[in-house]
């Protein structure tokens, strides 16, 4: 395999609040290849969004990256001054947020916002900027892109706004796009359209994409590889289909079994008991152990990542993994 475009090692991001230190991201490592779509799944509080924000240097106080390394094409990003990060953001790293209602500026036309995003990184004529804007808007499936440039965000539907946000992220052909729950706020029919378009764009442009979602089915439809996060750590990773077909970590198994599609209608779902732990007071050892049916005394010690082939899991008592 060629050198990864993005390489994250032992990333630790904590929030230093009055209530204590919240260990939002607690030692996350992964590599991302050019043109790859990596899914990150987990429930709220698992640290999946904070991981994404950390990559772009967007963690605000009281949070901060405590340790670890993020390398973009070999360049270390952790510790880089804000001015240099700002130069990278939008050009080599871009982000798409969950809520398309709040990410666009309501008082600027779409064309103006796109022009500003281009101007931030290079000098181009108004005409060239317009041409580039039209190109990306067409690419994300916005019909009649030319006339839509003068429209304001409120004149777009939710799905169209999210397309605009994706178009803005694509503007400068970044190496990596981080998309945080980009289709969660959208209806299924619009989500299906966007998933199909994004897959095509990634294939055409060779951009690497990190797709953060709580929805296993969406991730399985778009990502070739997946990280499953729980309480700030990656508990399992590997090729998406293999992980979902035969999970090794009991948490992944529990998530899958919680899906209504997994049980006959009207039958009881196999639920995970309890609830995710507070990040300020994580259980000793494996954070999942208080909810885990396989846990025993050994789990009081934090398990390390076991790597076999393309897959890895962090568990003392992994499942057999037969499909």
């Amino acid at each position, binding site marked *: 395999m060629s050198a990864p475009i993005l390489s994250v090692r032992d990333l630790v991001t904590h929030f230093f609040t009055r209530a204590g230190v919240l260990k939002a991201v607690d030692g996350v490592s992964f590599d991302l290849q050019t043109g790859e779509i990596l899914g990150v799944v987990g*429930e709220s509080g698992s640290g999946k969004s904070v991981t994404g924000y950390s990559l772009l240097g967007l963690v605000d106080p009281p949070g901060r990256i405590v340790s670890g390394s993020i390398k973009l094409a070999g360049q270390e990003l952790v510790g880089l001054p804000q001015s240099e990060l700002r130069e990278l953001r939008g050009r080599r790293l871009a982000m798409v947020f969950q809520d398309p209602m709040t990410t666009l500026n309501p008082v600027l036309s779409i064309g103006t916002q796109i022009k500003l995003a281009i101007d931030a990184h290079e000098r181009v004529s108004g005409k060239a900027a317009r041409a580039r804007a039209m190109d990306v808007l067409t690419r994300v499936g916005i019909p009649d892109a030319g006339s839509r440039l003068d429209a304001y965000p409120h004149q777009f539907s939710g799905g169209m706004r999210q397309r605009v946000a994706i178009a803005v992220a694509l503007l400068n052909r970044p190496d990596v796009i981080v998309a945080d729950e980009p289709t969660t706020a959208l209806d*299924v029919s*619009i989500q*299906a*359209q966007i998933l199909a378009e994004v897959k095509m764009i990634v294939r055409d442009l060779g951009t690497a994409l990190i797709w953060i979602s709580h929805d296993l089915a969406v991730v*399985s439809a778009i990502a070739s590889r997946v990280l499953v996060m729980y309480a700030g750590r990656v508990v399992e990773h590997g090729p998406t289909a293999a992980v979902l077909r035969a999970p090794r970590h009991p948490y992944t198994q529990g998530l899958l079994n*919680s899906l*209504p599609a997994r049980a006959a209608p009207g039958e009881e779902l196999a639920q995970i008991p309890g*609830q*995710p732990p507070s990040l300020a007071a994580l259980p000793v050892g494996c954070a999942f152990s208080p909810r885990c049916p396989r846990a025993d005394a050994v789990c009081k010690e934090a398990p390390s990542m076991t790597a076999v082939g393309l897959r890895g899991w962090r568990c003392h008592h992994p499942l057999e993994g037969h499909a």
Partner: protein
Amino acid sequence: MSDAFVTVNAISRRFEQRVSLGDRIAAALGSDVEMRAVRAVDGVSLQVARGEVLGLVGESGCGKSTLGRMIAGILPPTAGTVAIGGEPVMSKGPHPRKRTTRVQMIFQDPYASLDPRMRIGDTVAEGPIAHRLVTKAEAPAYVAGWLRRVGLDPDVAQRYPHQFSGGQRQRIAIARALAMQPDVVVCDEPVASLDVSIQAQVLNLFLKLRRELRLTMVFISHHLGVVRHVSDRVAVMYLGRIVEVGPAETVYANPQHPYTKALLASVPQLVLQDDVVAVFKPIQGELPSPLSPPPGCHFHLRCEFAEARCRAQVPAMRRVGERHESACHLLREA
């Protein structure tokens, strides 16, 4: 159906845009002022049998929540009636009011639907005391019983909503609704704001309570998988109208209306084979504005089979199978 328990008869709800004084004067003087109104629900008829769970699915803006609120009696319809066991839910007259406690509602957001300044015990006891189901003295024991039933420790009665997680709050909201001893419960996206593992816990609770209390439920959700799991029958809504209704199994396995087919095809499925590319057949276009819905069949703009009559005539509900109905010109009566 002869065994109808909840009867929704040709119910409609319009929301009118507030018209300025100037426009009203202009209209009174005979000027052509556009009076804009959203027909959130447009002539919907439904029956729910006793003990049945009816799932109501559709995308945002299709009117499913508005319909649910009218069935629950917290929003008066502009036209049509809702009755439970033959008894109308709303009183008549210019200012209709809910006149039964036989139907209760559970809302989507347990952060917004519980009063943050009331103790859990008081929240659950308020309705039963006001409607004299229990006396003030009996209330604590009564509340404790319901809290236990929804899987909470009765001691939580002394606490406030902010001390609970989303899943626990939804349990409290369920206890509050059920403490009114309703026959019918309308649930509006009750698990949409919950994480997958918590969602499974709450769905299991619904299934358990439904069995124990033989509840009749209207279960509203945009999540087709969740609706499939809990419902006996499913109604699919599009832009204020029901386009298909039938037994859940039949509608999911053998959808008839082009919209239902397209909607089901849009739902991402778990892909478990390597190298299998998930294929989507997304519905073209977007939901038209409910301010100016297209004439005829509301779906015709996005329907690949639409023909001339679809643009002109509103299709009527027709029987397409055993207890299975759909409103599409292109379907033949079974």
